[in-house]
């Protein structure tokens, strides 16, 4: 009977290694995607630097990447929302910040589409803005400007830990 033991044990070890590799790969994807969103938002907010063309295309791209970000973290959204009552105060703060950020960024991108002068006409859709959507765009962009660093800083330990892992990783060696 003991001869049969190494088989399942090896299988379990392989499964654990595979799962760990996937988790690490997913962490890397999360990290780089989040970094891209942060840099993209800083660039998009700096309208004077980017100009309207880059601002609008970057904003549209940011909207798509945000959708992917939300999709990748949907598990967290569901899990945290379910346990919202029993969770600690910090988790509730993170949940509220994320909810506000979702609303602000979505409205920012949506209002940006409505008031678009370059990107949407290039795609064959002409948009005519109203003062409401113009002001909503500015307001939500300013709210987002305040919430993005809060959202990132509330997870600073994860950021530092992943960044350290990525920096200290030896080149040419795959992490296990």
């Amino acid at each position, binding site marked *: 009977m003991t001869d049969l033991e190494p088989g399942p044990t090896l299988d379990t070890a392989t499964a654990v290694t595979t799962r760990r590799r996937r988790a690490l790969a997913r962490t890397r994807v999360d990290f780089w995607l989040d970094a891209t969103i*942060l840099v993209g938002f*800083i*660039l998009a*907010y*700096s*309208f*004077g*630097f*980017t*100009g*309207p*063309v*880059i601002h609008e295309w970057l904003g549209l791209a940011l909207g798509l990447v945000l*959708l992917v970000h*939300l*999709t*990748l973290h*949907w*598990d967290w959204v569901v899990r945290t929302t379910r346990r919202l009552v029993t969770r600690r105060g910090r988790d509730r703060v993170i949940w509220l910040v994320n909810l506000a950020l*979702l*609303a602000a960024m*979505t*409205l920012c991108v*949506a*209002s940006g589409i*409505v008031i678009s*002068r*370059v990107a949407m*006409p*290039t795609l*064959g*859709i*002409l*948009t*005519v*803005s*109203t*003062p*409401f*959507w*113009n*002001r*909503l765009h500015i*307001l939500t962009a300013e709210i987002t*400007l*305040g919430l*993005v*660093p*809060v959202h*990132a*800083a*509330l997870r*600073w330990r994860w950021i530092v830990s992943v960044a350290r892992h990525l920096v200290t990783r030896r080149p040419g060696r795959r992490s296990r």
Partner: protein
Amino acid sequence: MKFTRHLAAALLAVTVVVALGVAWEHSSAARMIAPSVPAPGGPGFRKLIKAPSAPGSHGDFQVIRGRGGVRVVHPQPESGGLNVSDLQNLTRTAEIEAAIAAVVVTLSLIRRSQRRARTRARLRTAGQAAAAGPQPGPETAD
């Protein structure tokens, strides 16, 4: 499959937010951010129109008839490209982001150190109590 399901859920959440935004525009609360917004049912002006000709050339313009009148729209009003001379605009944004993040991280560190100090104090008290051994009970007269 899981990704598709989550994407659908995320899209639904985004749609709800956008729908709330549209509802806000058509409600009287829209005046909160745009006092000049016409009352619901009034001569509002917003319309998405499919461009009849391929836009792209400079000088193209489109006359759009909306509920509030006629507007001329230039599909390509500006040329693209970074305005490097306004780099200060970018650095200011980055500074604001960094400053807010620094405040949050500092608060988090202070909160963490306070929590650790409380835990240490509690452990010290418990350790002192354990080191002192069992306290002699009150003497009783036999």
